[in-house]
């Protein structure tokens, strides 16, 4: 059943209708096949892009949809309720556009944003390295300034859409400090590792990238030299909201599946939903989904009003992804033995939920951010 959402405008209602229609027809119908076979959904991002779903939170003058985060995140949630991997990659695309849109000069925005937001391309976000995940400041990939531009050498890791994306927000060390670049998806001296063999999110590759002296033109530097970590973290504040929304959508899908099943399956002469012990489990699941949604929407509304929201974004990421893990695990429980098989989607949901607690800052790191804000 469609989630009863509070949306600020008729425009937003129409957008959510479009999203549900498209997600039902293009995502829900293909997810099983691709997640099982670990194959990339060719053409799907072009469809999302043509519908205008790949530039939603960015300004109209550069081809974006000019939607507040409150609305954009609910679109991500609907996508995630059908196909977590696609929703995550969509969120990461938004994250990859953030440095140009927020820290680019007018000339850089004019040059790149229309293409990045136009729906014909997808982006990746390349901060992590094998030895530098939580501790992003420990990254070692180097960008050395030359007359013609920056020469990049080093290894990046864990890139969502790696090898498939058309561009990357790349973070590399320029001397002592870190800088942010808009890197093309293909350039001489850039190669990608074979996709990681993951627990879930099988349809979208996650790869390493090997930079072997590739040259990036000077004007691909975004913001000032050395401003990279600031850019990375401010992008992640927004990205975490995206992950919170994806986790909420995933949890919603698991709840819906569990509720349907509990209303059909009978034991001891009644529907299992009517056994209080199981009904209360479902009640806790519903409460977790609702509070996840409320929490990310609170953070989003603060962002939309231009208020500080970093702490609320971390809380939202923590609450929503922990909710997703709990709800998906309990959904498997509701299905009993059937839940443990691939005949039903709940085991996949459970596998997909786990990563949400890890990427874009593990939930330990979210607690670190939150507690730092509490320390006097």
């Amino acid at each position, binding site marked *: 059943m469609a989630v009863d959402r509070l949306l600020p405008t008729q425009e937003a209602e129409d*957008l959510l209708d*479009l999203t549900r*229609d498209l997600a039902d027809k293009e995502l829900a119908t293909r997810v099983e096949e691709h997640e099982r076979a670990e194959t990339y959904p060719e053409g799907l991002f072009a469809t999302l892009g043509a*519908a*205008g779903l790949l530039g939603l939170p960015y300004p109209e003058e550069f081809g974006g949809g000019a939607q507040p985060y409150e609305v954009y995140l609910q679109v991500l949630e609907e996508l995630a309720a059908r196909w977590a991997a696609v929703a995550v990659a969509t969120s990461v695309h938004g994250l990859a556009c953030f440095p140009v849109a927020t820290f680019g000069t007018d000339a850089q925005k004019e040059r790149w944003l229309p293409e990045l937001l136009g729906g014909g391309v997808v982006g990746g976000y390349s901060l992590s390295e094998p030895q530098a995940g939580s501790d992003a400041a420990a990254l070692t990939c180097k960008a050395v300034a030359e007359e013609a531009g920056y020469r990049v050498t080093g290894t990046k890791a864990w890139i969502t859409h790696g090898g498939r994306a058309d561009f990357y927000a790349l973070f590399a060390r320029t001397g002592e400090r870190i800088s942010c670049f808009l890197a093309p998806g293909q350039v001489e001296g850039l190669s990608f590792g074979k996709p990681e063999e993951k627990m879930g999110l099988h349809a979208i590759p996650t790869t390493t990238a090997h930079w072997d002296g590739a040259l990036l033109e000077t004007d691909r530097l975004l913001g000032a030299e050395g401003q990279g970590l600031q850019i990375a973290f401010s992008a992640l504040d927004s990205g975490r909201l995206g992950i919170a929304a994806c986790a909420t959508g995933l949890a919603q899908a698991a709840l819906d599946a569990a509720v349907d099943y509990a209303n059909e399956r009978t034991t001891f002469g009644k529907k299992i939903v009517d056994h209080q012990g199981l009904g209360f489990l479902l009640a806790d699941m519903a409460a977790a989904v609702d509070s996840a949604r409320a929490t990310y929407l609170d953070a989003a509304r603060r962002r939309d009003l231009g208020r500080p929201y970093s702490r609320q974004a971390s809380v939202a990421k923590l609450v929503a992804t922990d909710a997703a893990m709990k709800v998906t695990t309990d959904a498997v429980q509701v299905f009993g033995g059937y839940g443990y098989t691939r005949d039903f989607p709940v085991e996949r949901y459970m596998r997909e939920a786990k990563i949400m607690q890890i990427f874009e800052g593990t939930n330990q790191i979210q607690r670190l951010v939150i507690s730092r804000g509490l320390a006097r």
Partner: protein
Amino acid sequence: MNIVVLVKQVPDTYSERKLSSGDHTLDRDATDAVLDEIDERAVESALQLKEANDGSEVTVVAMGPDRATDAIRKALSMGADKAVHLSDEAIHGTDAIGTAKALVKVLGTLEGTDLVLAGNEASDGRTGAVPAMVAELLGLPSLTHARELTVDGGTVTVRRETDDGVTVLTAELPAVVSVNEKINEPRYPSFKGIMAAKKKPVTTLTLADAGIEPSDVGLSAAWSTVTESNPKPPKSGGEKVEDEGDGGSKIAAFLVGQKLI
């Protein structure tokens, strides 16, 4: 090229459809209403022709109650340029012939139409006759059941596909073409298209505006009358065939009994 697409709002095929108890017409309020999928394909065909022929314009024409505006918006958000909506209490219950007559009058309010496109059969009434009747009343060539459609200069060519086989038809424009479900995959409206659609012109006509005689439309003018209707009986348990080496012949006998083979 000026292309007109005839579109209809129908009950969502995924919802349960009912006849209203009073006059046995379709209970349109009981279900979600959508732009008929076959008409989405007709709109898609029109948009493809528009994209291939600079300076073309796509007009959608719909006949139906007020809320058919939603179906019209959908067509406009896909990319059609403008719309005409015949909306009048008095059209309730109109049959296929009355519909064709009324649509022809509405088409008469538009100038310079080169091509009229439609779906070959609406998913609710399923008479599948309106496009051909419209062509007949307009005195235009009728090319129905198209699975492929091309326009080259002033000539339209379709591959007509029915249970009887495939034929290739050509005609000079103006002409009426109805498309089948294999013609194309309709595009999704884009978010920008949805926004733009709100600003596109929709002309609403009453019977009088379109010059339609009230006696030509409505339930009372319909050539056929539904006197009684009953819901489909619920699915029964079916018949089990035990295979004792003769399962095949038993199944065949069953199918013969049902007049299926």
